């Protein structure tokens, strides 16, 4: 079985200088891969390279399948006059010749996709009036409409309450079990432990592999810089916690 995404010695950036380098990983069908890293670590940049918006500055990147994307929140305009159904229908643009508008069949597909993410009742609701978790699920529905084999989610859990986060996570499990490859950028190391692999980025790739072996103290320290502390062991396992960056600066300057 060949990988959906394969990066070899990949470097990407916005000008001549890469902001992210040494990236070597593969995403297989049916896998959920957590992309970990500090703010500015290069998670969004990697996704933009996968979407074809940024050309590799060095190395190779193969993407064998259509990419759907759930962008970092609040980038889409909440005051835009579109319904949830309109947003899902945007997933039909790529597959059709430019002069054909979405018709009845496309609407059915989009409604079905909204149904799969549990939002058929809210199809006509204005996108900006939905809750954060509902908006993320509309964007997942849009990826389903695109028939994306690869789904990129950029910090989808940020700002979600526990119930919405759980619901989204179950949805991602389901997408993976259908043989899609899922890349999820996140700040939550513990959440990523439940996924198939983790990719740790901090301007370059720090590590890639199954979470149990990969998420060592050293790797986490290199990924997040010094902003990491060990919490007293609770259930026999010591827990790691991230400090907010400003906290860390404060200690240095004091």
């Amino acid at each position: 079985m060949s990988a959906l995404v394969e990066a070899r010695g990949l470097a990407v950036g916005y000008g001549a200088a890469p902001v992210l380098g040494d990236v070597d990983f593969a995403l297989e069908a049916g896998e959920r891969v957590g992309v970990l890293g500090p703010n500015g670590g290069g998670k969004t940049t990697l996704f933009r390279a996968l979407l074809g918006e940024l050309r590799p500055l060095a190395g190779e990147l193969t993407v064998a399948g259509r990419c759907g994307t759930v962008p970092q929140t609040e980038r889409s305009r909440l005051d835009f006059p579109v319904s949830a159904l309109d947003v899902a229908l945007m997933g039909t643009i790529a597959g059709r010749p430019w002069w054909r508008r979405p018709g009845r069949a496309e609407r059915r597909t989009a409604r079905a996709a909204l149904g799969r993410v549990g939002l058929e009742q809210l199809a006509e609701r204005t996108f900006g009036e939905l809750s954060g978790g509902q908006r993320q699920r509309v964007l997942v529905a849009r990826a389903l409409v695109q028939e994306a084999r690869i789904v990129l989610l950029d910090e989808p859990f940020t700002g979600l309450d526990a119930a919405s986060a759980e619901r989204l996570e179950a949805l991602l499990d389901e997408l993976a079990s259908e043989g899609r490859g899922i890349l999820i950028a996140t700040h939550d190391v513990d959440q990523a432990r439940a996924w198939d692999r983790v990719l740790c980025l901090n301007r370059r790739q720090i590590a890639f592999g199954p979470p149990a072996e990969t998420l060592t103290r050293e790797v986490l320290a290199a990924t997040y810089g010094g902003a990491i502390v060990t919490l007293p062991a609770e259930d026999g396992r010591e827990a790691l916690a991230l400090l907010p960056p400003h906290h860390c600066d404060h200690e240095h300057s004091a």
Partner: protein
Amino acid sequence: MTVLASVLTALGDPWDQGIMQRALLEVVLLGLVGGALGCWIVLSELSYGAESLAHGMFPGLVLAALTGIPLLLGGAAGILVAALAVALAGRVPGIGRDNAVAVVVTTLFGLGVLLALSPSSPPGIQGLLFGDVLGTSAGDLLDGAALAAVVLAALWVLHWRLLAVGFDRLSARALGAPPLLADAALLILLALAVLVAVQGLGNLLVVAVLVAPAAAARLLARRLLPMMATAVAIAIVAGIAGLYLSYYVRVAAGASIAGFMVLAYALARLATLAESLRGAATLTEAN
């Protein structure tokens, strides 16, 4: 009974004249193009671009009027020159794009005014500044209808791509809607719409039809298609109201039309304000 009859006569009277009939058709064309395209202009925050384009093309219009070339051609050439000048000025280091646009547009507009006000200019050239709806000829109407058809057809075909780009520029590309293409399409359509509208409303007022009805509709409608329908309706009603006003009170038609469009925006603002006040009042009552 007689009152009703005289009101009906007063309403019907103006349209017996060929001038007013052609003006009515022109106003409908303006409303269709301005209302529909205006929604994209307002949503993409291109109002400033619309204004720049309209003023930057002014010397082209004046030269056309002075030399007897069709206004449409002069306007098109004027837009091309203005667009090139803006693009070039934007490349001069240390100016900044907004400043470059401002400098180029002001210079071009001033040049046009100088030309228009020179002693050798024929009378009636002020029509270029304030428009001359009542002077619409059958040929103008045909040109306008053709351009309007192109603009509306393009909006129809490009609808979903424009929507994807407006909604989220950065993901639009991955969805098959390149933002640069959408930008270019909107600018070209904007240039065409300005060409249609400048004949009726003149250089100073053309922006009114492209911005005011859509800005009002934006306050009243919650989906794009209803927003477009509302903007078109507002533009056409304002246009007809302006024609009546100029017929009975003898004020400039273009200015009256623009005035009614701005009035519609003010009314829509008031309506939404009243609604939010009422909403706040119900909230306090509930507490």
